[in-house]
C-alpha cells in the first residue's frame, strides 16, 4: 500500500454543532501534493461534505488561506511532504481570528469593509480627460510602491496578528499596506483622504509591531514595514498641522 499521511481537519456545521471538532482523515502522501490537494482528495473520495474555499491553486487568488499546524498558510503552496517527518497528524484549521461559517470557511465581510475604508484606488483632485493621455510613471516611481501592490488579499496577515485577534476594530495589516500602496503612488493625490482612517487609534496606532504579518505574507508585501513607515508619516503630518496650520490643504 502506498504511503499515507493523517490530516486532522476542523469541522463545524452551524446547523448541528455548538462547537467545532477535529476529524481525522488518511490521505495518500504524494511528493507533489500540497495541503489543498489533500483536502480536495478528501472532498472527492472520502467525505463530500467538507467545505473550504479555493480557486487558482497557484498562489494568486488568495482564497485557500488556512491554519496548518497553527501557522497561517496558503494551502496551495504548502507541501504535505514538509510535514511527513512529524509524528503527529497535520492539523488544518480555518484562518484564526475570523468567525467560522462552516468547516474551513471564514466570514470575511469585516476585512472587505476595512479594505474599502482605506480607499485602495487612485484618487485625483482633478481627473485628466482621456485625450490628455495617460498618467506617466517612471520605473523608479513604480518601485516605491510595487512591493505593497503584490498583496493578494489572502488575509494570512490578519490570522498572524494578535492585535486583530484582541481588537477586531483594528484596520489590520493588509488594508494599511494597500493604503500605503496608493499613498506612495506618484499618480495618486488621495493621501489626505486616507489619513482619517489610517491615523485613528484603530488604524496604525493600534499596531504594536509584532511583525508576524510580514513573516507569514506569501507575497513578501511587508505590511509591518508599511505600518511603521506610515506611523512616521502621520507623526510628521501631525507636527506640521500643529506648527504650520496654514500649510494644510
Amino acid at each position, binding site marked *: 500500500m502506498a504511503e499515507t499521511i493523517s490530516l486532522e481537519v476542523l469541522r463545524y456545521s*452551524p446547523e448541528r454543532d455548538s462547537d467545532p471538532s477535529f476529524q481525522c482523515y488518511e490521505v495518500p502522501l504524494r511528493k507533489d501534493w500540497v495541503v489543498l490537494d489533500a483536502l480536495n482528495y478528501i472532498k472527492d473520495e472520502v467525505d463530500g461534505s467538507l467545505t473550504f474555499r479555493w480557486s487558482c491553486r497557484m498562489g494568486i487568488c488568495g482564497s485557500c488561506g488556512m491554519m496548518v499546524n*497553527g501557522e497561517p498558510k496558503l494551502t496551495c503552496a504548502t507541501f504535505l511532504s514538509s510535514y511527513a517527518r512529524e509524528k503527529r497528524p497535520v492539523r488544518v484549521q480555518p484562518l484564526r481570528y475570523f468567525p467560522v461559517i462552516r468547516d474551513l470557511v471564514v466570514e470575511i465581510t469585516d476585512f472587505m*469593509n476595512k479594505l474599502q475604508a482605506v480607499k485602495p484606488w487612485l484618487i485625483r483632485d482633478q481627473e485628466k480627460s482621456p485625450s490628455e493621455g495617460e498618467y506617466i510613471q517612471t520605473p523608479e516611481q513604480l518601485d516605491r510602491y510595487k512591493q505593497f501592490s503584490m498583496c493578494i488579499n489572502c488575509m494570512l496577515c490578519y490570522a498572524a496578528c*494578535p492585535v486583530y485577534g484582541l481588537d477586531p476594530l483594528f484596520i489590520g495589516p493588509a488594508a494599511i499596506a494597500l493604503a500605503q500602496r496608493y499613498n506612495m503612488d506618484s499618480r495618486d493625490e488621495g493621501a489626505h483622504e486616507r489619513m482619517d482612517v489610517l491615523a485613528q487609534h484603530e488604524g496604525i496606532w493600534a499596531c504594536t509591531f*509584532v511583525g508576524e504579518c510580514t513573516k507569514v505574507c506569501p507575497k513578501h508585501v511587508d505590511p*509591518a514595514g508599511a505600518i511603521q*513607515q506610515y506611523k512616521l508619516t502621520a507623526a510628521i503630518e501631525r507636527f506640521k498641522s500643529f506648527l504650520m496650520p496654514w500649510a494644510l490643504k
Partner: protein
Amino acid sequence: MKTREARDTRQTVRYTEYHPRWYRAHVSTWWWLAGWPYLKFILREMSSVFVAWFVVVLLLQIRALSRGPEAYAAFELWLQNPLIVLLNLITQFFVIFHAVTWFNVAPRAMAIRFRGKRVPDPWIVGVNYVAWAAISLVVVWFLVRS
C-alpha cells in the same frame, strides 16, 4: 474632517447579515505562549520596564553625585545590595535584548532610499550596531582614562 468610513469602523465591526450563526473562537489570555515569535514580542515589550528601571538608577546616581562624596558612597553601598545586583543583572539582559530586537526590526520602519534604490536591510541594521559600538567605545575610553 472625519469621513463617514472613519466613524463607522470606530463604532463596530460589521459582518454580513446572511449568516445567522457562526463559531467565533475565544482569544486566550495566554495567546503569547503559542509560539516563540509571540513570546519574543511580549519579552521585547516587557523589556521597557527594565529600561525604565535602568533610567531610574541612572537618575539616582546623578542625584547622589550632586549631593557630594558621602551621598555617593551611600549610593554605591546600596548598589552592592544582593537584591539590587540581581535586579541589575536581569536589567542588563533585558536592556541588551531591547536594543538587539529593536535594531533587528529597524529596517522595517526605515525605508531609506539612496540613488533611487532602497538601502538593503543589513546596511540599516549594521549602521545601528556600528553606532552602538562606537558610542560604547567612547564610554569605555572615558572610564579607562580616569
